[in-house]
């Protein structure tokens, strides 16, 4: 029986659609997708990877720190279900990471250590192109209900389309431009985390939270705030960000 209520699903899709229509920040959008997917499936954590120009997966967003570190681990060790889902273009499931994780021994150990019992990886596809993958980490071993999986795939497909936007479906160049832009935005955020961590004497993860709350409180885009923190003209925003 599906765990996801129709009401909640409708709310999430409306929210995602609104985000696509409004001012669009790629990083925030992908972040939203991971957070909402995790909430819909209750107690899961979600990570999202996108492929760069050399067809190598790079970390883009996660619903929490645990998922983030697991995704970074996947990328760094080139081992994990997201990589397989990306390469094959099909979903890859490990409903019981203990029993099913032998394909990715080091990753599986990390997943178990982080307190998760299952992993389900969904490819991000558009017309034969696979541009990335999304991982669902379940608290307990067990498959995900088929209907719930269909909803998640639909959410992932919407995220893919949202990422590429309407024009990209017709012009392949726009896809490349947007993905390169998104990858670079991610780098800016890491640079800003480091700069803020240094200025305020906090960890890089705390610095990220400071940036996010500042962006939210002031109605600014995360990418914009990160840009301002590390830009040459040093608008002083870095000092403003301290809570």
């Amino acid at each position: 029986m599906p765990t996801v209520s129709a009401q909640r699903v409708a709310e999430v899709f409306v929210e995602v659609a609104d985000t696509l229509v409004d001012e669009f920040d790629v990083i925030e959008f992908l972040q939203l997708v991971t957070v909402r997917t995790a909430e819909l499936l209750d107690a899961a954590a979600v990570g999202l990877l996108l492929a760069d120009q050399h067809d190598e997966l790079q970390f883009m967003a996660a619903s929490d720190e645990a998922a983030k570190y697991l995704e970074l681990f996947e990328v760094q060790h080139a081992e994990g279900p997201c990589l397989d889902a990306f390469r094959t273009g099909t979903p890859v499931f490990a409903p019981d990471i203990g029993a099913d994780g032998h394909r990715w021994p080091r990753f599986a150990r990390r997943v178990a250590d982080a307190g998760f019992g299952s992993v389900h990886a969904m490819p991000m596809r558009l017309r034969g192109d696979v541009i990335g993958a999304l991982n669902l980490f379940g608290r307990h071993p067990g498959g995900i209900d088929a209907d719930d999986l269909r909803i998640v795939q639909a959410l992932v497909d919407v995220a893919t389309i949202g990422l590429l936007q309407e024009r990209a479906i017709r012009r392949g160049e726009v896809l490349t431009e947007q993905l390169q832009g998104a990858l670079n935005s991610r780098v800016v955020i890491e640079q800003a985390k480091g700069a803020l961590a240094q200025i305020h004497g906090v960890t890089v993860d705390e610095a990220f939270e400071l940036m996010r709350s500042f962006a939210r409180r002031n109605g600014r885009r995360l990418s914009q705030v990160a840009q301002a923190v590390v830009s040459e003209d040093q608008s002083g925003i870095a000092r403003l960000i301290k809570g």
Partner: protein
Amino acid sequence: MSVRSERLATVRALIAAEPEQPPSEAADRVDGLSRLCRAAIHALPAWGTAVTVMTAEGMQPVAVASDLRTQALEEQQFSFGEGPCVDAFAGRRPVLEPDLGAAASARWPAYTPAAHEQGVRAVFAFPLQIGAARLGVLDVYLDRPGTMSSATLGRALAFSEVALWILLDGQAESAADRPVERLEAAVDSRSELFQAQGMVMVQLGTSLSEAMSQLRARAYADHRRLGDIAADVVARRLQFQPGMAGDGPDRPGH
């Protein structure tokens, strides 16, 4: 070897095979970029390639190209203040125009006819950047309209990555001779590397580009992987201090 490693190694070998300019006023960087442009026209292939190097605020950018006609066209973008190179730099993402036709004229009304006059029918501009650190743009020109295949795109992006490192290091040798491993180290802990870059920028009170150069110089001098230096910086085991000889890093307690 990963796809990226292979592509970078191929690009470096192609550059190394290009003849150097005769010793002249030309700085090492310019020579390295010039060889890169010439290697790229054969490898991609392309009608012409150019790298525009952005300099300090208020100063004219400098263009290095595969040949004089491409250099002239590249420089026209500065005089017009418009063009794919300008847009790629400002927008912080590639600008790929596979058909310099009517749509392009609307976008770049002065530049498009000038490019047409030279026989150019497609332009692909790649910003040379690491996050917020922007150093220039690599422009690839074709004399026939057409989409870039993904293989060619991958190669062009590999050229732009090597061009970026030439600019960061300021030495022609850097791209061709430094061991592959040092560039590959950047792949392993990418987030940490960029975080360290931000931290060192603040520690030294300098630019992001300079911060990356300092990190790489330290790795090279200590015979350590760039990723390990970055990890030390993020973990606060390694701190960079301004004002010391060569602006080197300091270990706590030393």
